[in-house]
């Protein structure tokens, strides 16, 4: 305790000089090292949202079906019949770059705890991954480690990993993104919150023992990487999915009783943030005897105990007299259980170690009055629109083969076959579709889940990109027949202290907020990951959207696979042939320029309603939203997904240049497979909804044909399926 607080120590803890002055003012004295450490994690960007708070407040967070918005461990929505869905997405970017297996594994563990802490049984995991250039020397190793880590954790815990996304871009060479999402199911009347209550009530620690791992993880995740980042490996935590599985079962068993007053998982900043958050939300104080914390190692200091990010731990406040009941449950599951403190009325956190007070801090100034910045920002300049006439036209079939095999569009089977996506026995739409769908166990309802964002659009225009990410999530849910209900967001950006990066944050949030408002698709939870930069180079702005929707009757669900020959292929939405920012432009022409395609939100909503109505009425055999790669890629995906390799004959209109029609990424479009006998009623319904609908061809044959060009579906499948396994097997030249 005699460590002198020098300017070096203050800087090592990530404080700016004015922030340290603030600490002195709050305490009226200098902090000791334990107290300084506590301040540093509580005020880290990761825990305090100090750069983004001002802008996060502008997002819409309410709707009649929202039971709990941002601010708790996860968001909660009502799905009827007394049931609720609890979900959130969270990043584990920095640790996954340093130690991919454990970084990704503990990312999954952390988000699972956020959900079951609230009383929900996790029923599905999703993820959104971004890696650097495939030819970068680290990329393959990072992909292998992250995928193995996500699988290693999720598979053991027994929660299906039902889908996600994985893309590559050189901007992620030094900062990969690992965004993990968990969806859980709870009883609406049995939700658990983190606000402590009841002076004198016992504060209980359960789960794994505390070790020296992960100390300062939250601080690491709040700084840029430099050439020494790999030395930070000891700040990465180690996951134990078996203990997590036991912890889920034990917590849910105890939650079925009335023993718990409040509960909070120990995530980033471990015991520090969990205890501060519980006390702060309850307006109380807390006294903890650190000697009583179960520890893996001897001689741990108060500083180490408070800052450890050892995994699979929870903090609870129990009803008085329920200690024995609770202890018996944790004994059954062979987990540690220790009463480590009591709630007090002091409004302060008082920590003792070896009988001495080692920290005495006011709770509110740390937890709620953390710094909030209005960082300077500049909006990026608008880019010119790319005219189709100025884009080199390649032969469409050759271009299609290139696109379906490019890293972003290539099949991710190699990844999701390493995830148990069927455990729990309710996965009715497996990975590879527009949205994953899991049944609500024992009912006819089902939950659809998707993760979406198009970072190259966000780079070109973060406002449009933010709108597009939300709209695409809305489309992917609608395309399986689900009513979009709410989203969680995971905002991944560079260093917010740079005005141009802060401008991306502000503009993306403005776009997202507008789309969420217009589509009745509120944000109920989220996470911000800033400082995704290495030596001054930032990632593409990547505000990942995790969307959740409800199917009232799972039997109405559709998939994207063509079902029969001789069906009409109906395109909903306008095709002007927008090639700016498209994958065609990047993969075929080596260009990443141009403005991204705009999203028309009012039409988006009408189209979504139409699609859901048609699917609900059983009029659609297959449905697929048109996104990356454009129309021809979308048709190819429907053909490749079909069990019998059913092809299509397409009839492009003369009004749009062929390449622009095939590969333009105009927004707000869906493809429907419709039986000839009901085509007229589908077109009529579209007209009633004022939605442009056009028959663009027919299913049939074993090839995709467009204006005299054709390619067998089998060849497309080979191209689409072989890139990732070959790349991971080291069989691709230049990679």
């Amino acid at each position, binding site marked *: 305790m005699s460590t002198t607080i020098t300017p070096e120590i203050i800087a090592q803890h990530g404080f700016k000089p004015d922030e340290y002055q603030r600490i002195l003012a709050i305490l009226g004295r200098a902090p000791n090292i334990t107290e300084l450490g506590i301040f540093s994690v509580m005020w880290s960007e990761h825990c305090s949202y100090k750069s983004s708070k001002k802008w996060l407040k502008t997002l819409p967070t309410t709707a009649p079906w929202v039971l709990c918005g941002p601010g708790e461990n996860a968001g909660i929505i009502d799905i009827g019949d007394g049931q609720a869905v609890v979900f959130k997405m969270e990043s584990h970017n920095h640790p996954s770059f340093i130690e991919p297996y454990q970084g990704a594994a503990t990312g999954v563990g952390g988000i699972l705890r956020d959900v079951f802490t609230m009383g929900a049984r996790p029923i599905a995991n999703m993820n959104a991954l971004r890696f650097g250039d495939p030819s970068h020397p680290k990329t393959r190793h990072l992909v292998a480690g992250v995928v*193995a880590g996500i*699988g*290693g954790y999720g*598979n*053991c*815990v*027994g929660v299906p990993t039902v889908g996600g996304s994985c893309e590559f871009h050189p901007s992620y060479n030094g900062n990969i993104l690992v965004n993990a999402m968990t969806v859980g199911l709870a009883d609406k009347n049995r939700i658990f919150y983190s606000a402590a209550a009841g002076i004198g009530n016992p504060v209980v620690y359960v789960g794994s023992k505390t070790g020296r791992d992960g100390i300062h993880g939250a601080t690491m995740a709040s700084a840029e990487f430099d050439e020494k980042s790999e030395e930070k490996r000891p700040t990465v935590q180690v996951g*134990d*999915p*078996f*203990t997590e*599985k*036991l912890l889920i079962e034990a917590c849910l068993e105890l939650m079925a009783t009335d023993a718990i007053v409040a509960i909070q998982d120990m995530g980033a900043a471990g015991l520090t943030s969990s205890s501060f958050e519980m006390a702060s939300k309850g307006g109380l104080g807390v006294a903890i005897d650190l000697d009583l914390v179960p520890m893996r190692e001897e001689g741990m200091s108060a500083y180490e105990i408070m800052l450890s990010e050892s995994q699979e731990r929870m903090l609870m406040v129990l009803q008085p007299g329920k200690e024995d009941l609770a202890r018996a449950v944790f004994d059954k*599951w*062979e987990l540690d259980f220790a009463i480590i403190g009591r709630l007090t009325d002091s409004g302060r956190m008082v920590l003792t170690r070896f009988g001495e007070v080692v920290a005495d801090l006011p709770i509110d100034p740390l937890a709620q009055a953390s710094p909030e910045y209005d960082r300077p920002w500049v909006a990026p300049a608008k880019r010119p629109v790319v005219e189709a006439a100025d884009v080199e036209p390649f032969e469409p079939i050759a271009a299609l083969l290139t696109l379906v095999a490019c890293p972003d569009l290539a099949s991710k089977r190699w990844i*999701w*076959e*390493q*995830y*148990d*996506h*069927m*455990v*729990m*026995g*309710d*996965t*009715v739409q*497996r990975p590879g579709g527009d949205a994953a769908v899991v*049944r609500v166990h024992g009912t006819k309802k089902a939950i659809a889940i998707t993760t979406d964002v198009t970072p190259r659009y966000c780079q070109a225009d973060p406002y449009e990109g933010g709108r597009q990410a939300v709209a695409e999530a809305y489309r992917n849910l609608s395309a399986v027949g689900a009513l979009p209900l709410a989203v969680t967001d995971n905002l991944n950006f560079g260093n917010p202290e740079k005005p141009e990066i802060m401008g991306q944050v502000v503009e993306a949030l403005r776009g997202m907020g507008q789309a969420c408002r217009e589509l009745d698709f509120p944000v109920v939870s989220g996470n911000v990951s800033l400082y995704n930069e290495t030596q001054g180079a930032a990632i593409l702005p990547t505000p990942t959207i995790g969307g959740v929707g409800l199917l009232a009757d*799972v*039997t109405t669900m559709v998939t994207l696979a063509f079902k029969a020959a001789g069906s009409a292929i109906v395109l909903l939405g306008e095709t002007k042939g927008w090639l700016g920012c498209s994958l065609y432009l990047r993969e075929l022409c080596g260009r990443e320029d141009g403005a991204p395609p705009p999203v028309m939100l009012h039409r988006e909503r009408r189209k979504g309603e139409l699609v859901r109505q048609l699917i609900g009425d059983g009029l659609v055999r297959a449905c697929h939203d048109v996104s990356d790669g454009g129309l021809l890629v979308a048709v190819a995906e429907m053909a490749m997904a079909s069990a019998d390799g059913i092809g299509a004959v397409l009839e492009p209109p003369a009004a749009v240049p062929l390449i622009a029609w095939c590969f333009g990424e105009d927004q707000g479009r869906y493809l429907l497979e419709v039986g000839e006998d009901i085509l007229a009623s589908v077109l009529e319904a579209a007209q009633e909804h004022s939605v442009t609908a056009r028959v663009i061809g027919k299913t049939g044959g074993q090839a995709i044909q467009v204006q005299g060009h054709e390619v067998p579906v089998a060849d497309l499948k080979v191209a689409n399926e072989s890139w990732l396994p070959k790349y991971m097997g080291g069989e691709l030249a230049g990679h």
Partner: protein
Amino acid sequence: MTKGCSVKAAVIVFPGSNCDRDVAVALEASMGAKPLMVWHRDTELPKVDLAVVPGGFSYGDYLRCGAMAAHSPIMREVKDAAARGMRVLGICNGFQILTEAGLLPGVLMRNRQLKFVCRDVHLRVDNDRTDFCRYYRTGDVVRFPIAHAEGNFFADSHTLREIEDNGQVAFRYCGADGKVGGDANPNGSLADIAGIYNSRHTVLGLMPHPERLADDQLGGADGKLMFDSLVEALS
């Protein structure tokens, strides 16, 4: 199957089991009644006709898969009851536990490609004259999912010969056309073996999960016939 319910079944639950509910759902659909869920620390196994050892990661699989669970108190009871003729079905981690417990021959090693793999596979039924497979026909091709990292079956040549000669192979990995071997083998298993019986054909262990395709809404119901077979045979 609507056989009233004269059949009694138990699902053995270890810490880390995670397919216990899934198999209970499949059993209930075929039996018309819920199976008993028996916790690993229980020292007494209720009198049942069938015990199912489900999939998952018992004890985290931190030692050898199934090795810890094989030594738990309840497995002594399962072994005793099996010796008296109770039917035992081990799925995935359950299969690993049964080999570790000595109820089935052979071992399950790390997959040939060293990775966890979750996907549907085709299986050829090798022996339909058992209580587990009476609703299949020898030579039938069925589709079950696999989800494992250690499903690579191995036995020494003497044991393998015994298994083969005694009709103890239950299922072999095959293509959709029923052709056994080659790329259809997802993990490197010896003789493409996906599941085996004990010498009396009263204990079955298999890596694929019949309970995961026992409901058409999940994409297929080939697995349901195994549970229906057991109900029919044990009623």
